[in-house]
């Protein structure tokens, strides 16, 4: 194949042009670009869009590019895959402390306490004990406390009233179960009930347990998590058995529907209560039928318990990744996300309380709470929450508990005591690191 002289010239000229262009591009000073992953929740994305634009407008030299976290069966899969593949962002605002040990083992996250002015900023915003809760065993702080969603019981005001149920009765297990029996009704005469009080999910995916078993367990045990500080199984106790018994009773006595429902059963008026967090507030406001009224109370606990109800805090934090090429600039953006003004904006858009001290007393937020009295309940509850343990096997642990939940509560094939025992044994096996 012989090339003619003219095409050779053409190629050489093109090459030269490319060289010149690339050199000139390198010569110019490029702004620092940070990638930022908020969660895939629609309200959180809305908030992210607003603050990213505000930041970009005022910081031409540090530009932030936002990419919503892709959904998957679990966010953890996605983040870990990114760490493994080296495609991590600079900042992620959906860090779930439960999976954190895996990230740290993967040297994935940045030791934020080494950033300039870290403790000054963080202690000014967040109570010390919250920061301590998120300090890792090696003394570093790999995640910056950002917000928590205290889990409570949402209920349909009109529906409960129509069935003569006082919300106070929902505070204890026996009261709750009695109310559930009252609520089961066949309204359209086809021989099958169409109305229930509460519908625990039959989904065996591990993270579902966070919002039924785990939340109830924290309440029932007066604030225990699954593992002790030394990392040993700490849930083989009466509280766990009581939670399993409670859930099993609901299924066994037919106090809940069997299987998936079409549409949102709470908004459709088919179930009167659901265990959820403040993120539901904007969702309900947007999607509820006209005239729908809802409110929140703390989750039920076993009879005879005293003191404030402790619940799952579903914390989510912000972290800068160790792979970030510009951690100092990223830190500036993170401080911006957590500034007072943006915390207020966050609260307004997503209704998720940030970990800000004196939230209830701060005059800047007073207007918001006046208009949204519902949110004050979450702030009140927010003082009494627990997160998850720091174990890299957390997903497997919850998966093991899910298996027993399925066998004992949903299928009724095991007694709660044996189910708890088997779950504990499975978790010990996992922790022993076979």
């Amino acid at each position, binding site marked *: 194949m012989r090339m003619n002289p003219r095409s050779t010239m053409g190629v050489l000229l093109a090459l030269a042009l490319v060289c010149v262009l690339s050199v000139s591009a390198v010569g110019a000073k490029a702004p620092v670009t940070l990638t930022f992953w908020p969660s895939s929740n629609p309200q959180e994305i809305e908030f992210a869009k607003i603050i990213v634009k505000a930041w970009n407008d005022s910081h031409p030299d540090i530009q932030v590019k936002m990419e919503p976290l892709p959904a998957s*069966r*679990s966010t953890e*899969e996605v983040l*870990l*895959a990114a*760490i*493994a593949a080296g495609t991590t962002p600079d900042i992620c605002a959906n860090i779930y402390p439960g999976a954190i040990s*895996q990230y740290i*083992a*993967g*040297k*994935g996250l940045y030791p934020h306490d080494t950033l300039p002015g870290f403790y000054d900023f963080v202690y000014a915003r967040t109570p010390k004990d919250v920061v301590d809760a998120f300090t890792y065993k090696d003394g570093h702080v790999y995640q910056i406390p950002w917000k928590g969603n205290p889990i409570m019981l949402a209920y349909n005001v009109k529906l409960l009233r129509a069935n003569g149920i006082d919300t106070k009765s929902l505070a204890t297990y026996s009261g709750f179960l009695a109310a559930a029996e009252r609520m089961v009704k066949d309204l359209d005469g*086809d021989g*099958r009930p169409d109305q229930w009080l509460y519908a625990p999910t*039959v*989904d*065996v*995916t*591990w993270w579902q347990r966070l919002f039924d078993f785990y939340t109830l367990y924290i309440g029932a045990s007066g604030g225990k998590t699954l593992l002790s500080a030394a990392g040993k199984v700490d849930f083989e106790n009466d509280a766990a058995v009581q939670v399993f018994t409670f859930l099993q009773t609901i299924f066994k006595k037919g106090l809940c*529907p*069997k*299987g*998936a*429902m*079409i549409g949102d059963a709470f908004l459709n008026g088919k179930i009167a209560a659901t265990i959820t967090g403040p993120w539901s507030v904007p969702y309900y406001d947007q999607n509820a039928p006209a005239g729908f009224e809802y409110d929140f109370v703390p989750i039920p606990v076993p009879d005879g318990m005293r003191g404030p109800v402790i619940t799952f805090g579903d914390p989510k934090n912000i972290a800068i990744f160790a792979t970030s090429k510009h951690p100092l600039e990223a830190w500036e953006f993170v401080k911006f996300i957590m500034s007072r003004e943006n915390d207020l904006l966050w609260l307004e858009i997503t209704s998720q309380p940030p970990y800000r001290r004196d939230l209830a007393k701060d005059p800047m937020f007073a207007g918001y709470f006046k208009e949204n009295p519902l949110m004050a309940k979450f702030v009140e509850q927010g003082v009494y929450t627990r997160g998850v343990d720091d174990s890299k*096997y957390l*997903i*497997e642990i919850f*998966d093991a508990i899910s*298996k027993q939940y*399925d*066998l004992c509560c*949903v*299928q009724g*094939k095991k007694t709660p005591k044996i189910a708890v025992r088997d779950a504990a044994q499975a978790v010990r096996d996992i922790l022993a690191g*076979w």
Partner: protein
Amino acid sequence: MLGRLAEQYRTSDKAGYVMVLPYILHFLLFTAYPLVFAFVLVFNRWDIVTPMEFIGIRNIQRLLRDATFWTAVINTLRFLASHIPLQIVLSLLIAVILNGPIKLRSFFRGAFFLPFVISGAVVTILWQQLYSTDAGILNLILNRIGMQPVPWLTDPAWAIYSIAIMATWKNMGFYIVLFLAGLQNVPHELYEAASIDGANRSQQFWKITLPLLQPVMLLVVILSTIGGFSLFIEPFVMTGGGPAESTLSVVLYLYKQAFQFLRMGYAATIGFALAIMIFVVTFIQRKLLDTDQPA
């Protein structure tokens, strides 16, 4: 010896080496390397983010004792035991009917074949709605004709068979076509001769048709077996492996171990176990059903 090789090389068509090069490269990169790597993984423990840790045969030992794994195997066998006979009987029946003097054959063939080309994800999402215990169409129809609703996907005794029914529905068109092709290969003269000898239709079917369908039957059995062992998207979408782990397939378990728990070594072990099982089962099937060829 070397001289002979050199001579063969000299007289060979050189273009051949270049033409097979893409295949060689592809094979090395996407088959040979992964195969070796999978084998290495079996003896290690690895979560991608931390360095690999050699643990000898602990993964294998664990697999043998792992009740969940064996549950998955049993689920798969239950699936195969229901799906394969159902598939053969129904597909053969319809193929036989279609083979006769039927008008609109293309239309029927087309109708049956449609679910086969549709993505498994669509079929699964669709059937999940149909199977819904309280709100699904199937139970609605049963209710109308006065029968009790069936807990298709919520009862561990039913769930895997519900998936088998759906899988039969999805793939039937393909097997009908296979059987049709096999039926059309049976020479008419055989039937005519048998008629003259006084054999009725039923005898002709059992004595002539079925034996001559042997190779197609074997193909159907092997293909459905391999398909059954590869069951993933259906339980993944419909049930997540529940209820009570009754629909956990081996591949779904592999996926969970690898991508939820990050136990790559263990997942690789499951992969090899699966390959061995498929090989053994199809080997036995070939021995039993393959009449005219030595193994």
